[in-house]
C-alpha cells in the first residue's frame, strides 16, 4: 500500500501541495484529480522521489520511502506528465538503456522490449530516432519503460495524453488488468470519463489541498450528484464555464 501522511511541498514559501494525506491500495486503481496547478504532478514527483517534500511522510508497504530509496525505485514504474525523452536515441536504444540501468538481464529484457514494442505497434519504428516520434508514440515508449521491470507500484501522470483511440482503449484495460493482478496503481488524468470507468477510488486536489478522498460510488451518493464530472465541477472548478467563454469571445471581438 502507498500512503501519504500530511505531505506538503512549498516552493519559495508558496505552498504547491498542502497537508495532503491519502492511501492507494493494491488491487485498486486510485484516480488523482485536480485542475491545472492544483499540485498533482508535484505530488507525483514527490512519490517518485524526484523532489523532496517539505513536510510529511510517504510510505510504501509500511516503510518510509526515504529509508531505502533505491529498493523503492526498483519496485516503482513512472510515466511523467510530459513525454520528455532522450531524443537522440532510438526507441529500442532508449528502452535498452533503461533496462540496463535497472539491471535487468540482457536476454530477458530484449525479449520483453521486443514483445511490448510489437503489442504497442511500435516495432516498425523501433530504430527511428525518438525526435521524430509523435506524442502518442513517445507516450507508448514511456509506458513500456515504466512497465518492463514488472513494478509493484505504478504511477501514471496523464498516461492517455496523445494516444489514439485504439491505444487508449488498450491502456484503459491494461490499467485495470494490472490492478487486478495486485499492483498499486495511482493514476492522474483530466479525462473524467476515463477515470470514472477505470478507478474505484478517487482523490481530488484543489489549490494544493485535498478536497475529496473516497470511492466514486460513495461520493456520488454523498453529494447527490450523478457523475464524476459534476462532483469535480462542484469541488474544484471555481468559474462558470459558459460565462468565461463569453468573456473570452467578447475580448477577442473588442
Amino acid at each position, binding site marked *: 500500500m502507498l500512503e501519504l501522511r500530511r505531505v506538503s511541498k512549498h516552493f519559495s514559501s508558496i505552498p504547491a501541495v498542502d497537508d495532503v494525506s491519502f492511501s492507494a491500495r493494491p488491487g485498486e486503481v486510485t484516480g488523482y484529480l485536480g485542475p491545472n496547478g492544483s499540485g498533482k504532478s508535484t505530488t507525483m514527483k514527490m512519490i517518485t522521489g524526484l523532489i523532496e517534500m517539505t513536510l510529511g511522510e510517504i510510505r510504501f508497504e509500511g516503510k518510509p520511502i526515504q529509508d531505502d530509496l533505491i529498493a523503492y525505485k526498483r519496485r516503482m514504474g*513512472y510515466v511523467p506528465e510530459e513525454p520528455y525523452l532522450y531524443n*537522440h536515441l532510438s526507441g529500442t536504444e532508449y528502452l535498452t538503456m533503461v533496462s540496463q540501468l535497472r539491471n535487468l538481464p540482457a536476454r530477458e529484457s530484449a525479449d520483453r522490449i521486443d514483445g511490448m514494442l510489437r503489442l504497442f505497434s511500435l516495432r516498425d*519504428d523501433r530504430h527511428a530516432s525518438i525526435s*521524430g516520434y509523435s506524442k502518442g508514440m513517445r507516450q507508448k515508449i514511456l509506458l513500456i519503460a515504466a512497465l518492463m521491470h514488472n513494478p509493484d507500484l505504478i504511477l501514471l501522470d496523464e498516461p492517455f495524453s496523445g494516444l489514439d483511440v485504439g491505444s487508449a482503449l488498450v491502456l484503459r484495460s491494461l490499467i485495470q488488468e494490472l490492478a487486478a493482478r495486485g499492483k498499486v496503481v495511482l493514476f492522474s488524468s483530466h479525462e473524467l470519463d476515463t477515470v470514472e470507468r477505470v478507478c474505484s477510488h478517487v482523490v481530488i486536489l484543489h489549490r494544493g489541498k485535498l478536497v475529496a478522498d473516497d470511492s466514486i460510488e460513495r461520493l456520488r451518493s454523498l453529494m447527490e450528484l450523478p457523475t464524476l464530472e459534476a462532483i469535480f465541477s462542484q469541488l474544484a472548478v471555481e468559474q462558470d464555464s459558459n460565462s*468565461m467563454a463569453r468573456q473570452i469571445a467578447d475580448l477577442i471581438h473588442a
Partner: protein
Amino acid sequence: MRKLFDHFASRLPLELRVLYGQFLLRVIDLEALSIEADVTGFLGQFAGVLIMISFVFVGRLIYPTLFMDQAHTALFLREMTLQTEQSLITMTFLVTGLITVLSWDATFPDRRDVMVISPLPVRPYIILVAKVSASAAVLSLAVLSLNLPASLVFSSLLGSLNGSVWGVVRFFCAYWFVIAAGSGFLYGSVLTIQAITTLLFPRRISLRISALLQLAAFALFISVYFLEPSTPAFAALTLPQNQGFVLWSPPYWFLALMNQLTGTLPPWLNWLAMRAWIGIGISTTGAALSLLLCYLQTMKRTVEEPDLVPGAGGSHWTPRIGNLLQTALVLFSLRSLTRSRQHRVAFAFFASIVFAIALSMLHAELPPRKTIPVSMDYLIPTFVMMGFATYGLRSIFSLPISLTANWVLRTTQLRAPEKYFAATRITMFLFAVAPVWLVSAALAIPFTPFNAVAGHLVVLALFGSVLVELCLIGLYKVPFTCSFLPGKLNIQIVFWGILVVYLTVVVSFAEFENRALRNPNQLAILVCALVAAIATLWAFNHSRAKSAELYFEELPEELITTLRLISAPPPRTD
C-alpha cells in the same frame, strides 16, 4: 551615440527587431548552456579571451623594442611587419572559422523557426535579414575584440615607419578593410557551400552532409592555422616548399592584399592580391544568391518534411562494455557525442586540435630521414594531445543533452554513486586516453630506439590515467546531465591559467622523461611515481564518490501553470 543608434533601430520594422533579438541569443546554442547561464556575461568573457590574445600580439612586438635604441627599433619593426600581419590575419581567419563552425546552422531557418514563424504574417526576407544580422553581430564582436587593440598599436608603430601621419591612417584603414573582407570572405564561402548543399540535396541528406562539412571545416581551419609556414619576408612566398600553401591558403592572399593597400607589395606578387579580390567577389555574390534561393525553397521543404524517418537498416548490435550500468553510460555517451550537433562540434573542436598536432608532427617527420631518435619534439606533442583530449572530453561532459529528460536517470538510479563514477572513468578512457594513445603509437613508428618508444607509450598511458583521475575529482554527475555555468565561471582566467600551467608542467615532465628514457633506473622511478599518483588519486576519488550524491541539474519547477482566467477584466459596458 546611443540616441543615434536607438533612432536608427526604431526605424527598422518591428518584426525584424524582434526576430533579430531572438536569433542573436540563439547564435549561441542556449540548449548547451546551464539554466543559470548568464549569456551576456559569457559573450563578454569570450570577448575578453580574444582581447587578451590581441594584447599578446601587441606585447610580442612591443616588448623587444623596450631594450633597443631608435634605429634598431625601426629596423626590428620593419623586419617584423610581414610576420605580424600574417599572424593577425591567420588568427582572424581561425577565429572567424571557429565562429562560423560553432554557429553553423544559425543562418538557416530550422524546423522550429518554420513551424513557429511561418503561420505569422512575417515575410521570408525579414527572417533572412534577421538571421544574417544576428550571425554577423556575433562575428563582428569577435573580430573587433581580437583586432581593436592590435590595430591601434600596429597602425601607430608599423604605419609610422615611413614617418607620416598619412601612413598611420593608411595602415589603419587597410588593416580594417582586410580584416573585415577576410572575415566576410570566409563567412560567405562557408554560407555558399552550405546553401549549395541545401539546394542540391533533399533536406534530410543535406542535413547529414552539412554535419560532415561542419567537422571537415573545423579540421581544415585548425590544420591551416597550425601548418601554415611563417613568412618573415616576401621572398618566402616564392619558396618551392611554400607554394602549395601560398596558392591555396586565403590568409596569404589577404596578406598580399593588405600590403597592396599599404603600398608595400612587390609588383611581382600582385597576382596574389588579385586572388583576394576575386575571392571576395565570388564569396559575396555566391553567398547572397545561394542564400536567397535557399530561403525561398527551404521554408517550404522544411514544412513538407515528414516527422518520422525510418532508422538505418542493418545490424543494431550493441557491444557489452563492463557491467550493465557501464555499458548503458558508455553507449549513452557515445551516442550523445556522435548524434547531438552541439556535442559533436564541441568534441570536434578538441579532436581537431589533437588532429592538427598529430598532422604537424607528421609534417615534421616526413622529411628524408627514415628513423629519428626519440626527442622532445615527439614527447611534448603527445602529452599536449593527451591533455586536450581528456580536458576536452571532461568539458563536453558538462554540456547537457536534455535537462528535461534527466528524470529518466534519476528514477532508475538503483546503484551507488561510485558505480556511476566508475562508468564515467571508463568513458573517459575509451574516448580520450585510448584514441590519443593509439595515435601516438602510430606516430612513433619512425622513432628509435624501440625500448625508448615503448617506455614512452607506457608513461603516456599512465600520464593519461593521472589526467583522467584529476578530471574526475568532484565529478559526481552522469555525463551530459549537468552544465557548467558560462558567465559564472571566469573562462578568460581559467583558459589562460590552464594553458600556462599545463604547458609549463608538460615541458618539465617531458624533459625529465627524455632523460629517463635513456636510463632504466630513472624510468622505473618515473613509472612507479605515476602508478603511485594514480593509486592515490583513485583512492581519493573512490572514497569521495562513496559518500557523494549524484547531482542532476533540473529545470526549475513552474509555479504558475494555470491561466487564471477568472481574473480576466470584466467586459466594458461603455
